[in-house]
């Protein structure tokens, strides 16, 4: 019962915090470039505004185009709900392990890429085409990272991995490699600088934004919310695997839960700050430089896995 409560709280928590996180990143970026920036609550206002607006649908959009936002949102939300944020005892954590979570994110992208091609404009095709190129390297890199973690923890269950990490496994080169690779994949998956620019509106450089160019109103709101959830998901993933301190263990009392939430909030804030610093200090790369970047992530993940396989220390 307690686990069910934790699960429910987590589902609502991620949904509530996701826009705030994006607002925080935007605010920090603005401050770093000596602008005042919008309030950290601005993403909530944007979402509310989009929800209330009517949907302007392209003339030959099919049913798929209208269903996809809900699918993308649901898949991302479910994935985000399965990553331990403040406590490990999630009741449904066994329904999908880290491989399945990766695949769920992959499903969301699959449908979004299809939706990009539905209307039949060149921008949508361009976005989808580039998106699948990026994901064709980011996904195997992610699987390699999962392998590294799973080999250390002897499990692909995120809750188990988190508790193994919490118990401490020492400093491991393979984990360091996995962390670097995970950060690179997270940058690519979330379409952040230097892989993609979430605030660009220049068609030639867009990837994600080009794909969703035809969306408007509530559909766009859902897709934006899904993107914010995805950023939250990756930050939570890094937090729960590499800085698991403060996570409330299974069956912990209310005080541990509150402490877990507080530390989680702290981790997210630090993460948002780091994202902002990273993004302001680096320039976007050319599209055809991205494969090198992600190829490096794949190699690092593979190297980490290989080390674990060969050394057999763990």
């Amino acid at each position, binding site marked *: 019962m307690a686990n069910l409560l934790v699960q429910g709280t987590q589902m609502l928590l991620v949904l509530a915090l996701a826009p705030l996180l994006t607002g925080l990143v935007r605010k920090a970026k603005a401050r770093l470039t000596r602008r005042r920036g919008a309030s950290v609550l601005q993403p909530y206002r944007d979402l509310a505004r989009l929800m209330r607006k009517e949907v302007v649908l392209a003339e030959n959009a099919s049913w798929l185009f209208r269903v996809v936002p809900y699918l993308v949102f649901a898949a991302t939300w479910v994935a985000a709900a399965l990553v331990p944020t403040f406590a490990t005892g999630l009741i449904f954590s066994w*329904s999908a392990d880290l491989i399945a979570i990766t695949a769920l994110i992959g499903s969301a992208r*699959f449908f979004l890429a299809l939706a990009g091609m539905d209307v*039949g404009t*060149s921008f949508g095709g361009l976005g989808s085409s580039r998106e699948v190129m990026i994901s064709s390297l980011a996904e195997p890199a992610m699987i*390699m990272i999962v392998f590294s973690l799973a080999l250390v923890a002897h499990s692909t269950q995120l809750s188990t991995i988190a508790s193994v990490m919490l118990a401490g496994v020492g400093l491991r080169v393979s984990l360091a490699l996995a962390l670097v690779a995970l950060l690179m994949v997270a940058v690519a998956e979330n379409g952040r600088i230097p892989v993609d620019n979430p605030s660009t509106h220049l068609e030639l450089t867009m990837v994600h934004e080009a794909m969703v160019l035809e969306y408007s109103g509530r559909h766009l709101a859902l897709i934006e919310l899904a993107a914010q959830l995805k950023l939250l998901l990756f930050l939570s993933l890094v937090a729960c695997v590499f800085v698991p301190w403060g996570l409330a263990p299974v069956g912990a009392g209310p005080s541990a839960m509150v402490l877990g939430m507080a530390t989680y909030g702290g981790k997210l804030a630090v993460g948002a700050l780091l994202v902002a610093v990273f993004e302001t200090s680096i320039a976007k790369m050319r599209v*055809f430089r991205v494969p090198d970047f992600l190829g490096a992530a794949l190699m690092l993940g593979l190297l980490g896995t290989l080390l674990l396989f060969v050394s057999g220390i763990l």
Partner: protein
Amino acid sequence: MSEAAFATRLLLNGQLLVALVAVVALLALGLLGVAMASRPAGRSLIYGGALAVTLVAGLSALTAIAAPPAGIVLPLGIPWIGAHLRLDALSAFFLAVVNLGGAAASLYGLGYGRHDHAPARVLPFFPAFLAGMNMVLLADDAYTFLLSWEFMSLASWALVVAHDKEAGNVRAGLVYILMASFGTLALMLAFGLLAAGSGGGYAFDAMREAPPVGIAAALVLALAMLGAGSKAGLVPLHVWLPLAHPAAPSHVSALMSGVMTKVAVYGFIRIVLDLSGPPDWWWGIPVLAAGGVAAVIGVLQALLQNDIKRVLAYSTIENIGLVFVGLGLALAFSANGFPAAAALALTAALFHVLNHAAMKSLLFFGAGAVLTATGTRQMEDLGGLIHRMPVTSAVMLIGCAAISALPPLNGFASEWLVFQAVLLSPDLPAWGLRLMVPAVGALMALAAALAAACFVRLYGIAFLGRARSPNAAEAHEVDAFSRAAMIALAAVCVGAGLLPGLFIDALQPAVAGLIGETMPSQRSVAWLSIIPVAESRSSYNALLVFGFSAVSALIAAVVIHRFASRAVRRAPPWDCGFPNASPLAQYSAASFAQPIRRVFARGLFAARETVEMPPPGALTPARISTSARDPAWAFLFLPLTAAVGAVAERANKLQYLTIRQYLGLVFSALVLLLLVLALWT
């Protein structure tokens, strides 16, 4: 055959009887097809008959998986051997796959066959092809096996060249028959080695009792990989597959890609895991390597094709690669003393066999439906079919999602199991395997991601967007039989995806027969989850993931429609200031693949793009042309054929000798043979 062997012989049971009757009935249907081909009723009779026979045979085979093995020796074939037939759990599983796939193809053929302009060239061979595949699975001695194998190859060859007027089909048939003969030769040699160990016994029982050792066993493995691998489509023996599978009528393509490749997998399993005795520690390595390479090369090639059926054929190579990765892991685990892990890997491979049979048949049916509706298989002429063919589009979406390994569908379930098996392999003691397995795991992950890209491309270009040709703009939904076949297969994809535990449990008798160990029973697991090893290690519950996502999507939809806005307005799409863009300005199949072509296909596939830009003021359009090669052709087959040609050129001189010289040749050959005989003993 000795009396003792007769004494231990297995008895005929009901399921074996059904299978035998089914083979006879299918052969009879083939003969009937010769007679009835020209009459209008012939089509419904043949396909309807095949549907009934395969459906019964398939359901009976399903019940035979858990039944004890049955066998019979028929007084056919070579007099002193007879035809040994046997139905054990493994052949029963594959029989079920073949016959249920065959039933779906027959159902589809009832409608699709109406558009066939040369029924006389299809109707006799379709049931014969099904009978051939059934016979391979029942054979229990080398002679019957090879005979059935050849029968299957020839029947499918006849179907490949059925439409011989279409460009390229005759060449496809030629390449196919050459490769099939080569494969049979390799298998014949493999059986020869196996029989040599047992003192010349051609029955599988005799081979099992005296498995080959040392170098002979290694040779058997190599020959089985060549023989069964060439039929299954392992790189570099795959070259016939993307030519032959698309050339056949679509329901036969589905059978060849979805089902016949599985018969080849069966042949490999039967020879290597059953007849060759306990495997050596290194046997997994070549199988893993071949599987990993086939997976990546297959899917990359699929991404470069513009013909829907060729995309699907290359994707078959990818999936066969995945199956072989599972088999390689099973070999490695069972050879190194990890039977539980081996059971997991083999289950994953067999489950993927089933899943791929369902989804690839579904996709080929869909491609056939598109072909019927628009008259073309070229993606560049399609588009917007989701508006014109709602049912086909919906089931194709399920097929594409399933083969892209998206949860909660079946492709993901089997791939997830393979990944779990990979994660068990750090326990393996050998260095080679420890280096190999993570590399193959990375190749698999790459192949899975590229497969998703490939099927986004296929579906997005062919079914979404705007129609690129008048034919696509006026397409019509296909007939009810075709739709029924596709819906049935889509249901299998969803069912196997949501309830993988049931399928895994059903496979266990076949796994136990080969490995001697089974996966833990999934029936008792709470909430219908699957747990391959232990709950703390990994578990997956497709039903819950699906339900969870569906409820979340519903909540979002209801909340938004209730409390926010539900207004919709139709408007022209954003045109960036260039109104009324032609449908040809959409992303095309070639342009969609461009980033991936540039990233992955430049070196190995020598993918090139050339742009012809007319000078300013000229009225001709600019053109871009892309080219890519298949490395197997460039590095193996073209040099090989060139060498054969050169040798033939030399040998040509032998045509112009005098009688005395001919006699001399014969004489020296005789002396040489006598010398060999003298020195041999």
